[in-house]
Structure formats: C-alpha cells, structure tokens
C-alpha cells in the first residue's frame, strides 16, 4: 500500500516509515499541516495517517478539507488526546479510525491494513466464506465443513468481524471497539476468554485450526 504520514514529530514519523516499509508498504512523510494537505491532494494514497495536532493546519481540518473536495481516502487519526470525545470528534470530521498515542506499532499496522482493505469497495454481502467456514448473515447461521455451529449472538458478531478481516491481524482493542463498542482498555484480558470460547466451537472438532493467536499483536482468522 501507498501511505502518507502527516506527523510533526520527526523521530516518531521515522519509526513509522521504517516499520511500514518493513511490513511491505511505501510511506511518504509530511511534517506540517499545509505540506500534508498538499501532498494528500496530489498523491494517490491508499491510507492517510494524520496526527491531530500539527503546526500550520491541524489534522481535523486537513481531513475535513479533503472530504469537502470529494476525496474519500481512508484516514486514521493519531492523537495524544485519548478521550472518547476526542475520538468522536475525529470520526465526525471524516476520519475512519482513531488511535491514541502512545500506540503499539502492531495495533497501528493492523488498523492501517484494515482501512486499506476497506478502500477496495466491499460490496454488500449476505454470505461470508473463509476456507470451509461459511456464514449466512440473513439466516444467522454458521457452518464449517457442512456442519452447523451454534453460536451466541455476541460470538456470532465476533466471528463475523474476524471473517470480514480474514487473513489480517485484528487487535484486542479493535475487537473491543467493533464487537462490543467499548473505547477503553480493561485491566483484565477479557477478550482472550471470548476468543478461546469461540475457538472451542469453531476449531476444536476440526483438523486444521483457523483462529490463530499472533503474539504481541492479536488474532487472525485464516483458512
């Protein structure tokens, strides 16, 4: 993917560029708001990574300006302001995701890749399929290798999110935000228990496990 990082902290931006390159992406860097907006307008980027507080022009107004011009390149806000209100403000300004500083690089990578996929316009689907696992969103039915798997409503939602992001890392925070709609981190690792219960239902009686733990990052569903 081709990414643009608009971030005034040069050291932090340097680590980001390096990390994203290592993950196989190409990342450009703009150090202030005006330059960032100009680069976003000219370049063809898959995802923008925008710091909220910038010299020249703040992150919110950059994304707002792009949206007004009809540019819908997915944007991820980075901010030292971590409160729920700040997140809501960011999303309202046209941002697609929000990550509070400090963040784990794996978290950022997972979210950026998630946004990049979203850009390749996902048609409205009523069925999801990963390997031999199928999900019927209308009948709310899940089968693996033709056998029906009974799931609780929340487990269904959890699996749906994992299937939509199949082949990619999803972090615990992403799960908490998208499946439970909670925007804070509990001290206890509650997500792990839910994952292990889901694993018990979809993997236990089958030969090849599909739900994998990615150490230090999160989880991944793949065939």
């Amino acid at each position, binding site marked *: 993917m081709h990414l643009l990082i608009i971030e005034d902290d040069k050291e932090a931006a340097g680590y980001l560029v390096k990390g994203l390159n290592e993950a196989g992406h190409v990342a450009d860097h703009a150090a202030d708001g005006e330059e960032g907006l100009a680069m976003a307008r000219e370049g063809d980027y898959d995802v923008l990574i925008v710091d909220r507080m910038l010299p020249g022009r703040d992150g919110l107004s950059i994304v707002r300006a792009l949206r007004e011009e009809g540019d819908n390149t997915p944007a991820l806000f980075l901010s030292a302001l971590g*409160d729920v*209100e700040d997140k809501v403000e960011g999303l309202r300004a046209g941002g697609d995701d929000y990550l509070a500083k400090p963040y784990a690089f794996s978290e950022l990578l997972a979210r950026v890749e998630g946004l990049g996929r979203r850009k390749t316009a996902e048609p409205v689907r009523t069925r999801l399929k990963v390997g031999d696992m199928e999900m019927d969103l209308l009948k709310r039915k899940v089968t693996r290798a033709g056998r029906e798997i009974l799931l609780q409503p929340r487990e269904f939602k959890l699996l749906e999110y994992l299937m939509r992001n199949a082949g990619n890392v999803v972090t615990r925070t992403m799960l908490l935000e998208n499946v439970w709609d909670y925007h804070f981190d509990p*001290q206890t690792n*509650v997500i792990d*228990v839910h994952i292990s219960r889901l694993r018990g239902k979809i993997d236990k009686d089958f030969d090849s496990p599909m739900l994998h733990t990615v150490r230090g990052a999160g989880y991944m569903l793949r065939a």
Partner: protein
Amino acid sequence: MPAIRRTFHLLRSSTFRLAAVYLVVFALSVGAVLGYVYWQTLKLLDEQAEATIAEQVQGIAEQYALNGVPGVLAVIQRRSRLDTGGLYLLTTPVGKRMAGNLKALPAMALTRPGWIRFVFGVETPGGLRKHSARAYYTRLKGGYHLIIGRDVQQLHQFGKIIRNTLFWALGLTALLGVGGGLLLSRNFLRRIEAITATVRSIRGGKLTRRVPVDGSGDELDRLSAALNDMLDQIERLMKGMREVSSNIAHDLRTPLNRLRAQAEDAMRSGDPQEHREALASTIARADELLKTFNALLFIARAESGQAAQGFGEVDAAAVAREISELYQPIIEDEGGRFVLHVPDEAIIQADRQLIAQAFVNLLDNAMKYGVREGEKPDIEIAVEKTGGKVRLIVADRGPGIPQNQSEHVKDRFVRLDKSRSKPGSGLGLSLVSSIARLHDGELTLEDNRPGLRAVLTLKAKGA
C-alpha cells in the same frame, strides 16, 4: 512625616472619597436652599420698599397736578421734617436744592424718570456713614428734579446677615463633613488594613494566618468570615495537592526506577535473548506507566467537568447486562460464581462509555482484590431503582475494606497494604469516584458482610 503620610492615606481611602462626594452634594443643596431663601426675602423687602415709595409718588403727583411745583415744594418740606425713613429732594434744573432731606442729587446720570439706586451720606454720632437708597426719580415741568425714595440700609444689612449665615452654615457643614469623613474612614481603614496585612502575610508564606473577625456581624465582618472560609478551603486543597504530587512522585518513580534498572541490567548482559525479553518488558512497563498517566489525566478532566460532553440517555441495566456478558466467561473460567440482578430498564442521563468504564473498573477490582487467598471469585452485579435514584452495584466476598478506610481508598494512588503486592496503579477507585462526581452522583464502599459492596448512586432520568 508619618502623620502627613497617614493623613494622605486617609484622604485617598474610598470611605473618605465617598464622604467627600456626599459632603459636596450636601453643601450644594444647603447653599441652594439658603440662597433661594435669601433671594426671595430680599426680593420681597425690595418690593415692599418700592410699594411704599410708589404710594408717596402717587400722593405728590396729585399735589403737583393741583398746585404745581409750589405744592410739591410744600409737601416735600413737610414730609422731610418727619423722620419716617423717607428720602426727598427737589432741586432747580441746575441741581440746586430747594427742599428735602437729601443734600444733593446722586452722582449719576439722571436723564429720564424711573427707579434708581444710589448711596448717600448720613450724619451719625459716629461720623458720616454711607447708606443705600432706593428711589423714584422724575423731572417736573421747568426742569425741576424730584427724588422720592427710602433709606434701604436696614434691608441691606438684613441681606448681609443672611449672606453671612449662609457662608457660616456652608463652612460648618464642610468642616463637620470632612471631620466626620476622616473619622469614619479611619475606623473603616483600620479594619481593612488589618485584612490587607493578613493577606500580605499569607502571601508571604504564613498560610495559617486568618483575617480578624470581631463578631459584630456587619458586612466587613461577613467579608472577613468569607475570606477565612476561602482560605481554609485553599489550605485544604493545597494540602490535597501536596499529597497527590508526592504520591505521584512516589508511584511513578517506583515503576520508572524498575524500568531503568531492568534496562541497565539487560545492557550489561550479552545475551540477545535476554535483550529481547528486557525490551518486551520495558514496553509493557512503559504501557503501564502510560495507563497511569491517562487515568490521572482523565480524573483531572472529570474533576474540571470537561468530560461531560457526551451525555445522553443511557440504560444502566443494559450496560450492566453487556458488561456481565463480557466478564462472565472469565469469572466462570476461574471457577468462580457470578450473579446478575438488573431490572428491565434503568434510564439515567450519562455517558455510556464512562458508565461501562466504571463497571469495568469495579469488576477488575473485585477480581483482583475481592478474592481471598485460595478461594474462587464470587461476584454480584446489580442495578437497583429506588426513589429517583439508580444504584449500580458490584459486590464481592473478599476481605473487604475496613470501614474507617472506605473514604480514604477513593483518593488517588491509595493502595491498602494488603493489595500492595498485586499489580495496579491505585487509581481504579479514584477514577470511578470521579466518574460518579461527573454524573453528579456518589461512590460509596459498603460492607457486604463479608466482602466489599461498591455502590455508584446516580440520579434516575427525570428524577
């Protein structure tokens, strides 16, 4: 010099300025009243004199009509002899006196008939004196000058007396006013100075000083009492701040120190595997520190009321059900017991994220500290609706908190000795407490006999 300076100080005081303004207004009104009386009286007396003169002019005019100049001459001669205060003079066209008690024509241009005022000499035992006169002047046929008037010296004197009275009254008013103002200001100033002196010495560092209160209950006394209350409150807050900052210093220094020690230790080692582990642990420790920072920031924001923007209608019962669903598996996996008691609906005016966070913090606490050594967690979540209040409850069967500590543990960084060995920032309950305050509610920690019963009491919607 000091006396002058003190007086100058008095003159600059607001009380004195007020007294001075009042004095000026008062003096002006006194002056206006007396001036009016003076003017009216003089006018009246003047009119009376004129009326008397006019009567005589009338009489003499009649004589003149009947008997001509000789008739007038006779009347003047007769009247001049009577000592009634009347002034008369009849002269030839060149000004030679023919009759009358005035010596000569007044030294002024007499061209046409009309009212005149002049000064004339009067022989008294004490010598020649000048008196004022009011008269009517006319010229008879043949050029004879005729003056008929009255000595108005007494009237003049009377006016002078009134004028003098007026000046004296004004002078006295001013004197009394200034004196009273000074006296009043001095008393007031002395009390204000006492307050100023106290405030100065507090600014100088003597924080325990208080403004004197004399018990009179007047506005100055009430001001002093209010100032003292404010000073008490500031002292309390400062004490709190000092505690918090020394706690922060301690509770952040400890993990920072560990972090540093670990990094140093890893640097001495040459084993790459050890380096890798040390780095991973450094990141984990840094994350913990950042969590503590975020919690502190959140509490600070909640206490300043900034976070109350995302408020809306929230069903506390639904939040409790969701949170239970999130936590039940982990408690069951540990072999513990979990109970949920919620009504169908309990609507409150709140921020859903914050209410959920409060539940999560209390649950984390219950799982971490609410379990006795060697036992399984036994946790209850409940939502109760009673009399306009909604109570969110998380209860455990652990060792509980001693009743005399139940207020103290809500403070920042407070960790009871028993919990010191377990991980945690000591901010969990402070965070819940600040969420409660932000919602105009309250967090109470009760005895669950045995165990801890944390109750977050909030106002029900519409209550």
